[in-house]
């Protein structure tokens, strides 16, 4: 898809640079990247995600100038950032809310890829790099949540590092090695801070690979057929810079709404209490973006099984390109799969709902008792795995797909794209 370079240096200085380091050419070619002409707003989230990453890095570096990573001072230093540091309230809120917005955007971006079959050949590596970015984001979010050293920070860190303790034989030593002690403490906080600072830059590097891969294989599009002629494409700039720009403006308004009016809506009141190793909060919950996985973890009574299922839920994403056997990419032309996809989407929300409640509480009242959250999450977990491991492989063989348009341009003229 890289195509020919259209850049022609005009001035002597440009020519001089172009001979020695064609960096301007790289930038110009990047902006002229031929994109399918039928991209919709679901395709704006890549740009939104780039913005989110930049915002997290900028606000994070500034927070780190005022933050103290010791168990004695961490909690106070974050409170001081919020109260005393000029505009600290804004930067702290942008960083904390920003993490949620980042995950919101990444989830939309991923479901988009799932729906339009963007993980299928030749985009398998592109998809896998995306999964790696998601994994690194989860690690970064978890590490960052520990830093304010509130009750949820501390107990979240205790529970999550406890996962490693469940590994047979080496588990306990591994856990102590990760914590730098017998329990979550000062050494843990300091290394979490160091890694929380590092990982976003690893993510930035992965994003570089991700974008490189997009430019190499070309973007997929809502009807999922390949670009055939130049007519099927538009230059990235100004067409999609404009469209993405509009989407970013809307996204930022929602972002600002949270930053200014609901800064605590996505947080947890317990995190306003300083970490206390002697008292566990009555109800430990992770941040909302981890809730579905938390529900999967608790759906089975066995500790090791729970962890394996939870990691398995991410592993299936990595191997998805080989699980879905269908030739047709976009679910627009796969009517049956599309229905199962909507159920899948619904089940992801159900898992999130279960993750936020105690497993033994009643979720769906029936008569005197009812169905507990544990059982609801079992059903949803089963569907989650069945979708990837059974439905997608089988539907690929048996489903009768709708006829694909001849080209993107024709589909647009026929009102199909």
């Amino acid at each position: 898809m890289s195509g020919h370079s259209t850049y022609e240096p005009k001035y002597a200085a440009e020519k001089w640079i172009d001979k020695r380091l064609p960096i301007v050419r790289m930038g110009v070619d990047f902006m002229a990247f031929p994109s399918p002409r039928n991209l919709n707003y679901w395709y704006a989230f890549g740009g939104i995600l780039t913005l989110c990453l930049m915002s997290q890095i900028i606000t994070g570096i500034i927070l780190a100038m005022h933050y103290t990573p010791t168990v004695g001072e961490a909690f106070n230093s974050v409170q001081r950032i919020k109260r005393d540091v000029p505009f600290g309230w804004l930067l702290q809120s942008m960083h904390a809310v920003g993490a949620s917005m980042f995950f919101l955007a990444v989830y939309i971006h991923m479901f988009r890829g799932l729906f339009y079959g963007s993980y299928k050949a030749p985009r398998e590596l592109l998809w896998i790099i995306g999964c790696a970015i998601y994994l690194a984001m989860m690690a970064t979010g978890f590490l960052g949540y520990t830093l304010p050293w509130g009750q949820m920070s501390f107990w979240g860190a205790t529970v999550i590092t406890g996962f490693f303790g469940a590994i047979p034989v080496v588990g306990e030593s591994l856990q102590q090695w990760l914590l730098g002690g017998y329990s979550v403490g000062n050494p843990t906080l300091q290394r979490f801070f160091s890694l929380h600072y590092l990982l976003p830059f690893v993510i930035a590097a992965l994003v570089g690979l991700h974008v490189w891969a997009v430019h190499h294989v070309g973007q997929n599009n809502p009807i999922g057929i390949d670009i055939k002629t130049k007519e099927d494409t538009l230059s990235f700039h100004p067409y999609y810079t404009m469209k993405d720009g509009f989407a970013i403006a809307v996204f930022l308004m929602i972002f600002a709404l949270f930053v200014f009016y609901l800064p605590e809506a996505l947080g947890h009141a317990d995190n306003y209490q300083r970490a206390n190793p002697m008292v566990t909060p009555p109800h430990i919950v992770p941040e909302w973006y981890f809730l579905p996985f938390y529900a999967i973890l608790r759906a089975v009574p066995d500790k090791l099984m729970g962890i394996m299922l939870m990691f398995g839920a991410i592993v299936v994403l990595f191997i998805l390109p080989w699980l879905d056997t269908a030739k047709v990419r976009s679910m627009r032309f796969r009517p049956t799969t599309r229905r199962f996809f909507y159920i899948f989407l619904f089940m992801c929300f159900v898992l999130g709902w279960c993750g936020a409640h105690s497993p033994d509480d009643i979720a769906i009242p029936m008569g005197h008792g009812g169905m507990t959250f544990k059982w609801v999450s079992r059903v949803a977990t089963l569907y989650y795995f069945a979708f990837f491991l059974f439905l997608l492989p089988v539907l690929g063989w048996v489903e009768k797909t709708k006829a694909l348009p001849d080209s993107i341009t024709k589909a647009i003229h026929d009102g199909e794209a």
Partner: protein
Amino acid sequence: MSDTQTGEGEHEDPSRRDFIYIATGAAAAVGAGAFAWPLVSQMGAAADTRAAGSIEIDVSKVEEGQQLKVLWRGKPIFVRYRTQKEIDYADSVDVASLRDPQTDDERFVPNFEGKINKSLLVMIGVCTHFGCIPVGEAGDFEGWYCPCHGSHYDSSGRIRKGPAPKNMVIPPYKYLSDTVIKIG
């Protein structure tokens, strides 16, 4: 200079070059390993962390039905003065039916006279699931209940119901006198 280009140097025995390759490679591997070891090892518990590993507890102030909570290695130690009812309950359980079979007696360390004091249960108050702290006098088995994911422990701290795999752990401890216990 010129004779190295035209002379026998060109047809030299290749095994000398192989030797240099292998020797350099081996040195690099050993060097990388020697550097990786400290990188990995620094993550473990530091000497001062390990040194702060033992404490003494005066149990004379604990009364029947009360529980003392002391921090040891960053984790709470429960010292519970059990009621007769709790002791009887712990003894009445069919051990074979337990997930992590242990008699109540096995969960005690003898004092200097070689006797066990079944009223004073000393254990690490950490749920063996993911490390939350169970709440006392709660749950379905006269013992503790872990609010995190719903594990029930009996009056001996043995796991009875819920996701935790093991009984709450008995730390290494000994009686220094009738009323002072040393943990760690």
